[in-house]
């Protein structure tokens, strides 16, 4: 048997003083799928980029190691040799289909570019081949899509175009760097299916970079587990998942959020109820025409009991975040909102300010939700300055220290600034800010989505513990069913602003009624 198509031997990558990859070796043969898994910052994307020598040289350097592609050394190869390999023998698809396509060119033009550059096809031949490729990646209505611009396509469609571009020159290796991370779960499943099918048809090698163990398990033949720039364990997929040897692999596998929601008394009195709840966005108004509106949430009815966690799931654009912001009256909403016996929808802005003490929110992005110019103390005590005006400096400091230790952060870090903390720690600060006012109810808007898997599990544990200790009520918004299963008592499934199914979590998970819920469940759990 000949040598594997790609051989990476003892590869090192340095960015200045940062030794990002330290001595990594692996092979990818044609027809084989090799996955590299690891958390963010483990150096997995750097490896993918160094195979094609796409790193920002001379910022990056390879002190040691070799990368052989089809027997040819890539490190130190000149531009002409690299160009011959890039896009023709080895192709790459990236995570973010939104920014990987040039927004100013049509789909046809972008694909044609690679065909003309590498194959020297004529315009007509290139057009036929483009159409063929788009049909191969199962882009529906391919003929019409030829003239489409990237913004006219959905995320999944864009990713299909990216794949078509990557496959245009029949590469022998396809590098897929988090190919589905930016996509909704149901679309994710379809794209992965497509990749697998195409790999079989074309017999190419596939190097899959992912943080998602579920995807890796269903796709890969062999798996390399990376942490801190090193491969700590590699082997066949079955072996890695069933008998992990290295402690980090075990830790990673154990990191999936699991466990059950906090015990809850189903007869607790209702805390929040929504009746005929609607949120509309004005999307422009002509001079004379009718007002145009986009209904983000339509006729929603929901009751949340004290101490209960209601999970709201759905794909992007389903209106789940809008629901959360609307019921806090951070967006204009219609319908009745009753909270603890108070009709929140009728409150004047002054009474609403007082009411905000009891209803808090934690956002998804731990980098965007903390003001970068305020210290942690200033961030957390901001609400206290509004609602607890009679608190003096010492009492405030005491409260800040108290909530910080509740979220397992050191109180003596309170004078640091957000950028000095990691993503998980920032999310803890966000939670501490919400807790500082001792609210009864917290809207958690994708609190774990921007975090690494093992950190996700810690945040989920923390949320459950806090709920138990303070008998908090949560509205838990997430697209990730695994996380929701670990926290929610009741589940609301939304699609395009409408509730397609709601009921006790157990019942919905075990026995979904609608097709859409079933599809979501399959995409998330069956692997």
């Amino acid at each position, binding site marked *: 048997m000949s040598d594997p198509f790609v051989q990476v031997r003892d590869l090192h990558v340095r960015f*200045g*003083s940062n030794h990002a990859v330290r001595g990594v070796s692996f092979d990818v043969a044609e027809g084989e799928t090799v996955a590299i898994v690891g958390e963010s910052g483990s150096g997995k994307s750097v490896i993918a980029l160094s195979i094609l020598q796409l790193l920002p040289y001379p910022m990056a350097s390879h002190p040691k190691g070799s990368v052989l592609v089809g027997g040819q050394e890539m490190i130190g190869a000149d531009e002409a040799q690299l160009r011959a390999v890039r896009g023709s023998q080895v192709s790459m698809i990236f995570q973010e289909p939104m920014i990987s396509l040039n927004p100013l060119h049509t789909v046809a033009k972008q694909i044609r570019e690679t065909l003309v550059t590498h194959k020297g096809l004529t315009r007509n031949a290139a057009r036929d081949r483009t159409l063929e490729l788009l049909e191969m990646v199962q882009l529906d209505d391919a003929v019409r899509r030829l003239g489409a611009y990237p913004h006219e396509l959905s995320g999944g469609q864009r990713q299909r175009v990216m794949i078509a571009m990557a496959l245009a020159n029949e590469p022998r290796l396809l590098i897929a760097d988090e190919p589905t991370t930016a996509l909704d779960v149901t679309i994710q499943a379809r794209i992965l299916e497509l990749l697998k099918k195409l790999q079989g048809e074309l017999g190419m090698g596939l190097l899959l970079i992912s943080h998602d163990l579920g995807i890796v398990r269903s796709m890969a033949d062999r798996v390399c587990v990376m942490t801190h720039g090193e491969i700590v364990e590699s082997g066949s997929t079955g072996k890695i998942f069933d008998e992990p040897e290295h402690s980090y692999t075990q830790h990673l596998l154990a990191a999936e959020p699991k466990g059950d929601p906090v015990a809850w008394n189903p007869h607790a009195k209702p805390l929040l109820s929504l009746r005929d709840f609607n949120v509309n966005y004005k999307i422009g108004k002509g001079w004379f025409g009718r007002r145009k509106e986009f209904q983000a949430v339509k006729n929603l009815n929901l009751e949340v009991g004290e101490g209960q966690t209601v999970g709201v799931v759905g794909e992007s654009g389903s209106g789940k975040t809008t629901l959360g912001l609307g019921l806090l009256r951070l967006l204009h909403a219609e319908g009745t909102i009753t909270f603890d016996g108070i009709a929140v929808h009728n409150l004047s802005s002054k009474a609403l300010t007082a009411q905000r*003490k009891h209803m808090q*929110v934690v956002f998804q992005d731990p980098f965007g939700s903390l003001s970068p*110019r305020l210290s942690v103390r200033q*961030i957390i005590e901001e609400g206290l300055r509004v609602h607890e005006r009679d608190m003096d400096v010492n009492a405030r400091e005491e409260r800040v220290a108290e909530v910080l230790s509740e979220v397992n952060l050191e109180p003596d870090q309170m004078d640091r*600034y957000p950028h000095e903390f990691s993503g998980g720690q920032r999310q803890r600060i966000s939670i501490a*800010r919400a807790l500082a006012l001792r609210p009864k109810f917290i809207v958690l808007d994708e609190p774990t989505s921007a975090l690494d898997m093992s950190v996700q599990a810690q945040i989920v544990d923390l949320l459950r513990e806090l709920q138990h200790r303070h008998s908090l009520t949560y509205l838990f918004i997430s697209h990730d069913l695994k996380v929701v299963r670990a926290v929610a008592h009741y589940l609301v499934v939304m699609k395009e602003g409408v509730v397609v199914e709601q009921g006790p979590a157990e019942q919905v998970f075990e026995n979904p009624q609608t097709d859409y819920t079933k599809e979501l469940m399959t995409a998330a759990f069956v692997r």
Partner: protein
Amino acid sequence: MSPLNQRRLAMFKANRRGYFSFWIFLGLFVLSLFGEFIANDKPIVFSYHGDLFFPVMVSYTDRELGGVLATEADYRDPFIRKQIESNGWSIWPLVPFAYDTIDWDLQPPYPAPPSGRPWLGTDGLSTDTFAILLYAFRLSVLFGLSLTLISSLIGVTVGALQGYFGGLTDLIGQRVVEIWAGLPILFVLIILASVVEPNFFWLLAILSLFSWMALVGVVRAEFLRARNFEFVRAARALGVSDLTIMRRHVLPNAMVATLTYLPFILNGSITTLTALDFLGFGLPLESPSFGRLLSQAKANLHAPWIGISVFMTLATMLTLLIFVGEAVRDAFDPRRTLKGALDESSTDLMESSPGV
């Protein structure tokens, strides 16, 4: 001082060019504030019949010094000079001319070239160029600073209100700004300057009417962007008032953009004043000004020292201000602060990269 401000100060000091420019400029400005003690047609202090006199601060009449006139003494007058010399002593400033002193002792033709007596020569009226430059520098900087302060206060407020509230407020505000910006500013200035007798404060008021618009766009854009940030939402969810959110959360984000513009506004103000003076629509005739000196230079092309010294002064002043402005802007940029750490690693990189 909060750690953030400490870091800003450190960042500012780390920018050597800006830091030195700041001290040089500050030195020049402080010196010019004491211009009366550097270039004046009165002694700083003199003794007359055993009493001490401070003519820069107190006005003494001719009669007090043995003359006959009830008006202020002319210390350049040979009679007065002789009176002081024979009855005491006097200490004169470095340059014995003020910006409006006419040197009658010089032999025509005027403008006189630079020599030991008038360091930088004189203008067409036989006034000392150095003295005019010194006083004009002070006046221009004070004018520029006041105008910058006023126009940024107005501009930031208008931009902040438009950006934060958006919608109809923004729509109306933008149209007003557009119409206002559409006025032919120079003509309006010329017309206004011929209606009122322009002095320092009139010019400040008239120029403020138009110079505030530079900042509205940037501040508005920053507020529009920042009002949807999650931390602003979080603050609203905490029940924080709009004014507090604008001040605490949004304004600091807009500060970098504002500070980026400030040195240019400051320089623009100084240049506008110079231009108006040059055209004859600026400060009253008796005040020291770069613009009028420039028009003197234009009228006396055979006396290049006038033009060259004004040009050098203006260029040095504007360059120093830009350097300081850049350093301040970089010090306030949070990404710069983070990059400071990265920069260290990238210098490591420079050292290690030749091996690649």
